[in-house]
């Protein structure tokens, strides 16, 4: 029995006894799906974001930098990617993160591993994958995201492209040891609670819209309808998904519930994973902001390597999960 069985009961009761919709109709299906998914996702979001925020209160970026500047090349890439998972990414923190890492002596490749993992593997995406696709696909998303982050960072590190970083970045060096104001247990709790509420406030409308459209498709579009356009047999499905994903960053929260229903209607899982990775990891606003600290060529190299990695992952899962 799933731990969400009580939610299922609640959704059934609301659909059939409160709204009095005749069972086994398309409308009943869509309404039931909407109520169940919405409640489930919001429970998961609250619990997981809260937990990640508590962990993060012990590991702010300044502490992460301290860990990374003492690591050798390859371990550095791995640890940077892992730490990227718990660090939220907003385009307003990209520049201070980049400058702070580089100027404290963290290698360029390690910094890029972090810059790839931080937006790609975030708790909101994780929750939505868990809730809409189940733990296996959520795990696949994390593991392949980590591999892409580690490898992209290693490749950029090997390419010796420090000359493509704006010269002013390397002109300053800083001491990475900083004393942050320490937090009490109560402060950590308040921080995690406020952060969770903040994220919920930001994403709830997108999630509702995403689940809403998803519920409609779930009820009204025939199963496997999309297989003929975007099934695993279509070679162009993966690169197309990656391209479409690039401008969608700010709506990641609404996109996942939507794509989960698309999968149900015949879009293959590899294509879906590639699409979501592209939505989160390749973001136009981030690229525009990074222009302040690096040359356009380095942004293209960075985006190119990540895009190739994502496309490859998409094909691989389409092949394995056929």
């Amino acid at each position, binding site marked *: 029995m799933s731990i969400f069985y009580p939610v299922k009961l609640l959704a059934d009761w609301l659909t059939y006894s409160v709204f009095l919709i005749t069972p086994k109709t398309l409308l009943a299906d869509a309404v039931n799906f909407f109520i169940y998914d919405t409640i489930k996702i919001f429970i998961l979001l609250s619990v997981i974001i809260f937990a990640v925020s508590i962990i993060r209160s012990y590991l*702010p*970026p*300044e502490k992460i*930098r301290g860990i990374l500047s003492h690591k050798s090349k390859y371990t550095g890439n791995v640890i940077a990617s892992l730490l990227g998972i718990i660090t939220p990414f*907003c*385009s*307003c*923190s990209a*520049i*201070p*993160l980049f*400058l*702070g*890492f580089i*100027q404290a002596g963290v290698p360029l490749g390690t910094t890029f591993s972090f810059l790839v993992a931080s937006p790609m593997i975030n708790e909101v995406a994780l929750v939505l994958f868990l809730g809409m696709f189940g733990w296996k696909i959520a795990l696949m998303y994390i593991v392949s995201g980590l591999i892409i982050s580690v490898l992209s960072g290693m490749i950029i590190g090997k390419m010796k492209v420090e000359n493509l970083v704006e010269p002013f970045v390397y002109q*300053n060096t*800083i*001491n*990475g*040891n*900083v004393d*942050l*104001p320490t937090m009490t247990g109560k402060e950590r709790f308040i921080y995690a609670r*406020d952060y969770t509420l903040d994220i919920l406030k930001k994403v709830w409308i997108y999630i509702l819209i995403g689940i809403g459209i998803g519920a409609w498709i779930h009820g009204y579009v025939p199963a496997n309808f999309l297989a003929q356009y975007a099934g695993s047999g279509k070679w162009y499905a993966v690169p197309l998904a990656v391209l479409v994903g690039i401008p969608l960053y700010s709506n990641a929260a609404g996109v996942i519930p939507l794509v989960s229903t698309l999968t149900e209607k015949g879009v293959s899982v590899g294509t879906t994973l590639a699409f979501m990775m592209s939505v989160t990891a390749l973001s136009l606003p981030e690229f525009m902001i990074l222009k302040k600290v690096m040359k356009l060529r380095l942004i293209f190299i960075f985006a190119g390597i990540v895009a190739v990695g994502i496309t490859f992952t998409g094909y691989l899962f389409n092949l394995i999960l056929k």
Partner: protein
Amino acid sequence: MKIQVLGSGCSTCKKLYEITQKAVAELGLNENVEYITDVQKIVAMGLMQSPILAINDKPAMVGFSSDIEKIKRIIQDNK
């Protein structure tokens, strides 16, 4: 007393600047709040988050808060 809000110029940074100005006014302090968007200044303090509330050149609050009472308390504690 030197009160500064440092940020990368994003909207949350501006919001913190406005809240801090309001907090200073409500405390009846005759101080100017400075708004700095030079990211290098944040990094030079050893920090990598934004926005920062700094008092007398020391970071007093890292990250955003809309809690004006908290900001008032921080200003008074760091006087």
